[in-house]
């Protein structure tokens, strides 16, 4: 398979980047998208050029490290997969593929296709936790009865891998799907009730401080999320936030 790639190249955070064109031959259908980039990089290294830097780790779709905007869509054309689980059979011989980093002011570019997503870490640190007393007589979490529906919804929210596709897809670069998933996974469980009010207030405040945009309910985030995190979480976060604000 022969491909025409257009890739964002940027030396470092300070430099100005640009799209660079590459022609790549000999790509197999069963290669993953990242393997295709590995082939490109091997060629570049052999020629003595700088390889294209991109984020990746587990390559199994569970770590949330890959972050590629492929032909205008986060993680590419397939649904419910991250870029590492995208395979070249989704493309055909002679295709042009545009590859860019996530674009958001809150996700500054580090190099080429790598962005700094520590804004998500700071949102988590602002309230994405529960306090559990580990000394004395810890209560087994399994001993607390929780409705199946609530447990399932909490688990579904907790499957968010924090990749940032929601921000990348959103026309407003809003991080509400991510933040709402992290709020929801605790808001639905009794263990999360103690810090419920301060959690949602602090996490939303941090989200705003990071410079993400506002949600306009287009639903793009839900469609592009590799884990299928639902918009219901955003509505839940809105409810939690309003009731926490009124409580003061």
């Amino acid at each position: 398979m022969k491909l025409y790639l257009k890739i964002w190249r940027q030396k470092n955070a300070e430099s100005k980047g640009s799209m660079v064109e590459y022609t790549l031959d000999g790509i197999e259908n069963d290669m993953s998208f990242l393997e295709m980039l590995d082939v490109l990089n091997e060629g570049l290294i052999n020629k003595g050029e700088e390889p294209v830097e991109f984020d990746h780790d587990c390559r199994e779709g569970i770590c949330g490290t890959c972050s590629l905007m492929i032909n205008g869509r986060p993680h590419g054309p397939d649904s419910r997969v991250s870029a590492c689980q995208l395979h070249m059979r989704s493309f055909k011989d002679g295709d042009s593929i545009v590859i860019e980093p996530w674009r958001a002011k809150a996700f500054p570019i580090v190099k080429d296709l790598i962005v700094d997503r520590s804004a998500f870490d700071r949102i988590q640190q602002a309230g994405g936790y529960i306090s559990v007393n580990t000394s004395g007589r810890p209560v087994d979490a399994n001993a607390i009865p929780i409705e199946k529906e609530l447990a399932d919804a909490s688990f579904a929210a907790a499957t968010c891998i924090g990749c940032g596709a929601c921000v990348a897809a959103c026309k407003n670069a809003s991080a509400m799907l991510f933040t709402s998933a992290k709020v929801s996974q605790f808001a639905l469980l009794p263990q999360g009730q103690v810090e419920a009010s301060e959690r949602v207030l602090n996490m939303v405040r941090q989200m705003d401080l990071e410079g993400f945009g506002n949600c306009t309910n287009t639903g793009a985030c839900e469609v592009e999320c590799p884990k299928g995190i639902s918009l219901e979480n955003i509505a839940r976060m809105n409810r939690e936030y309003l009731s926490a604000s009124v409580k003061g």
Partner: protein
Amino acid sequence: MSGLISSSLARKVVMALSGLFLVFFLAQHFTINITSVIDPETFNVWSHFMGYNPIVQFALQPVLIAGVVIHFVMGFALELQNRKARGINYAKYNGGANAPWVSRNMIWSGLVVLAFLGLHFYDFWVHEMSYKYVDILPEDPTRYHAETVAKFAPFWRTVLYVISFVLLSLHLWHGFASSLQSMGVNNKYTPAIKKFAKIFAVVIPLGFAFIALYHHLNPITY
């Protein structure tokens, strides 16, 4: 409460509440307007009531104007902030793959509706104000129907109104249901609410367009 004013979520709620208020107003406005087609006398009675009732004039009207101003000022502010949040635009962005056109272009449909409001205010509100407070003409409970029909005599005005109603429909198609999500309403009733919102988004603007066209095609001849 302190962080509420600057919070992104609170701003969403302000957009939602002002939007829902305007949706409610549209329903009320339509109910009165449709009588101009069904029964001109009823239309005259209601129009006169709306024009001279002190509660409507000095309490409800300012609230309505405030609702419109808050909705569009907040809409502009959010749009600017959202554009800034992206930073550098994508070389290729396939927004159509994951979100409907109407939801991504609320600012444009909103701007057309805002421009229409300018024309609509000039046509009816400015006319009313000058009738009552500039020319200081006497109350005439029978004038409204004939005045309304006459407004739609020019073809250009009727066309502008109809185009605006199409854009209003698109704006409501996304905005009505979206406002409920912003206020945290997303439960088992949501699919039914969304269906109602979409029916409203089509029926009400279509009704307004029908009224404009009806009066254009049925001028009063003396």
